């Protein structure tokens, strides 16, 4: 036992030293070795101060300017080799190549954005500060805020937080235009607690000492600013490592104090009541806010499911009937056709739909035989149709076989030919009988439209999943489930109803 532990420890040491060694020797993969290009945008007071000149900046100072030099130092690049390149904020969230190594532009890290670009770890938390009026009791936990008269500036994170997360007893006062009105309200005492970005509140409180009850708390939004890089940039681990180091050795804290006048750790973070296990579960899957917010997004995807379902079901109804008829053709001449039909149903009843989806996709993308559907949606419909035609063929076949041979014989004895006997006598009876099992297969098909998500059709499940990762809440998945259930229940009930009717009729015939 001891020996194994020692060996493991030795291995671990070797591994870490090896990594450290390689990190030290290799120069960071910047666009130009030994140089660093940092993206910025103006105006961004206190983050970037200076004068814009062409696409660079004259006499730059500010929090992000200082930070970029510190990161450069961590990367082993001297301040003289750091260039600044103006990159309008509107462009940095787009995918594709970037003309800079990284950009520092107060960019909030979100999963949706991270699908297109890469973020370093956070260097600045976008927390909300609480400024209280004089005489207002100091809140120590989030629920203390609930009974206060809150206020916020229109369309800010702070207002969003009050309305959706805090949900106080009294409606918050909302001030549009500028933050001045909100600050005045706190000073006058008509607003007891203002929620706004920490740096803004701190600088205002410093400007007017004695006017307010103080910046007493901050609320953790779990959001932070990150350096923006091109998607999958090789530089990302280096920048993140540098930022983590700067944060650990308090460099970033000092920079914040220098440019914003406070130490983030000195403002107490308000905690919410911890949710119990059940509460956590309910919140994750059944949060009413997230539910409402996810509905339009999931619905936009669900329309694809409905379209796929309708088209595939129409095709399956017709094709499966054809295959079933071919399987039942009599005579030696029809043998090859029967064989093809049998092989088809056997193969596709046995192949997982997921596999067929990927096969159709490959077929389509490789443009084999010039057959490319040109759309993922069509590929999905094709795969669903191929697989479900095989299932439904068997359903039809069972129905055809359940019609007593004497029916076909009676039709033939009247002089109807094979096709007429099939069309007017056998099929109408067969189809009537197979409606319930057929609808059951269609319920399966409706649900399996969700599988098409794996070849990249942004249908309901994909949208639900996007929502979950964007908002860290699984209620979007619940919404998708509800949509599918709502679609299925009527069909399931109708099927049950048909089966009951049939039983009643059969019992009546026995009597």
């Amino acid at each position, binding site marked *: 036992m001891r020996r194994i532990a020692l060996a493991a420890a030795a291995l671990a040491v070797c591994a870490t030293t090896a990594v450290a060694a390689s990190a030290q020797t290799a120069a960071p993969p910047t666009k130009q070795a030994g140089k660093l290009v940092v993206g910025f945008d103006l105006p961004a007071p206190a983050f970037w101060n200076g004068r814009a000149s062409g696409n660079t900046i004259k006499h730059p100072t500010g929090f992000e300017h200082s930070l970029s030099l510190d990161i450069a130092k961590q990367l082993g690049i001297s301040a003289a080799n750091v260039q600044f390149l103006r990159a309008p904020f509107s462009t940095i969230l787009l995918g594709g190549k970037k003309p800079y190594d990284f950009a520092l532009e107060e960019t909030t890290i979100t999963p949706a954005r991270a699908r297109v670009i890469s973020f370093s770890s956070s260097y600045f938390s976008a927390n909300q500060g609480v400024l209280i009026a004089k005489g207002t009791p100091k809140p120590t936990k989030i629920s203390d805020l609930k009974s206060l008269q809150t206020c916020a500036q229109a369309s800010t994170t702070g207002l969003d937080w009050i309305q959706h997360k805090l949900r106080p007893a009294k409606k918050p006062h909302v001030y549009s235009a500028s933050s001045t009105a909100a600050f005045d309200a706190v000073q006058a005492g008509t607003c007891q607690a203002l929620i706004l970005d920490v740096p803004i509140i701190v600088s205002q409180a410093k400007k007017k000492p004695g006017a307010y009850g103080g910046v007493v708390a901050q609320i953790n939004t779990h959001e932070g600013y990150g350096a923006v890089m091109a998607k999958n940039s090789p530089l990302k681990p280096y920048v993140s490592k540098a930022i983590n180091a700067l944060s650990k050795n308090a460099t970033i804290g000092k920079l914040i104090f220098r440019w914003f006048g406070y130490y983030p750790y000195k403002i107490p973070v308000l905690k919410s009541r911890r949710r119990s296990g059940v509460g956590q579960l309910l919140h994750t899957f059944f949060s009413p806010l997230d539910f409402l917010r996810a509905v339009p997004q999931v619905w936009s995807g669900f329309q694809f499911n409905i379209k796929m379902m309708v088209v595939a079901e129409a095709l399956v109804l017709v094709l499966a009937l054809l295959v079933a008829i071919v399987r039942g053709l009599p005579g030696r001449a029809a043998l090859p056709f029967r064989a093809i039909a049998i092989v088809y149903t056997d193969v596709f009843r046995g192949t997982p739909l997921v596999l067929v989806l990927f096969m159709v996709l490959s077929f389509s993308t490789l443009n084999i035989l010039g057959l490319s559907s040109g759309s993922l949606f069509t590929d999905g419909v094709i795969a669903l149709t191929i697989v479900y035609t095989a299932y439904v063929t068997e359903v039809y076949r069972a129905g055809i076989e359940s019609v007593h041979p004497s029916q076909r014989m009676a*039709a033939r004895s*009247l002089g109807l030919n094979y096709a007429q006997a099939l069309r007017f006598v056998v099929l109408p009876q067969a189809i*009537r009988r197979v409606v319930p099992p057929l609808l059951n297969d269609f319920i399966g098909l409706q649900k399996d439209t969700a599988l098409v998500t794996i070849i990249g059709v942004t249908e309901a499940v994909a949208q639900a999943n996007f929502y979950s990762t964007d908002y860290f809440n699984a209620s979007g998945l619940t919404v998708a489930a509800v949509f599918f259930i709502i679609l299925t229940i009527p069909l399931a009930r109708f099927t049950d109803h048909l089966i009951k009717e049939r039983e009643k009729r059969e019992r009546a015939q026995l009597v």
Partner: protein
Amino acid sequence: MNTVSAEANGHFVSLQSVTKRFDDLEVLHGIDLDVDLHQVVCIIGASGSGKSTLLRCVNLLERVDAGTIVVDGQKITGTKVDVNTLRQKIGIVFQSYNLFPHMTVLQNVTLAPIRARKLSKTEARARARELLVLIGLEEKADEYPDRLSGGQQQRVAIARALAMNPTLMLLDEITSALDPQLIGEVLDLVRSLADEGMTMIVATHEMGFAREVADKVCFLDAGVIREEGPPAQIFSSPREERTRQFLERVLEAGRM
């Protein structure tokens, strides 16, 4: 025309040495049977003797293995026979009615005239209504078969066959599945067909009926026609021992 007539020896229906085999089981062993125009021939015999098989061969629902069948001057056992056209001339009615349960009475009767004979719907319906009057079920035209009694269903089945204006009717134990009180109404119908001169081959267990309607009775025994003759002779003084035994058994069962 001459050669054809020679084959049939002037009979409307003529079976010569007809043999039928199901796999290893030979069911008919060289059947010879002649039926003249407007004649009613009854086939009697024990269960499994091959009555149904014989009728089905005449309708080409079964292919014979050897021998020839001539109907109305046409050799139907050859290779180049259009079975669909032939069957339009030969009506067959089964023991189990086999009405189409998803169609009304009227639709049952008009299906084949419209689809196979290509009559217009109006024509077919007019003819169907005449037939429904004939069978006494004109008011049931729009009912579905499962709302009819067995006797009514069987009468509809007969009307359905008649709707094709057949020249020959094959009736295969059409009263066997019926309750005794319903048998009469079906037999009355057959009797009126006979009176109108319809040529019929009737497989039956109703000996009283056979005696009354048949011009000729054939006793089928284990795939051969053991004895044939006018009903009076067969039922009163059968020549063959096997025939006598069969008739005794029928008598015991109370069917005469």
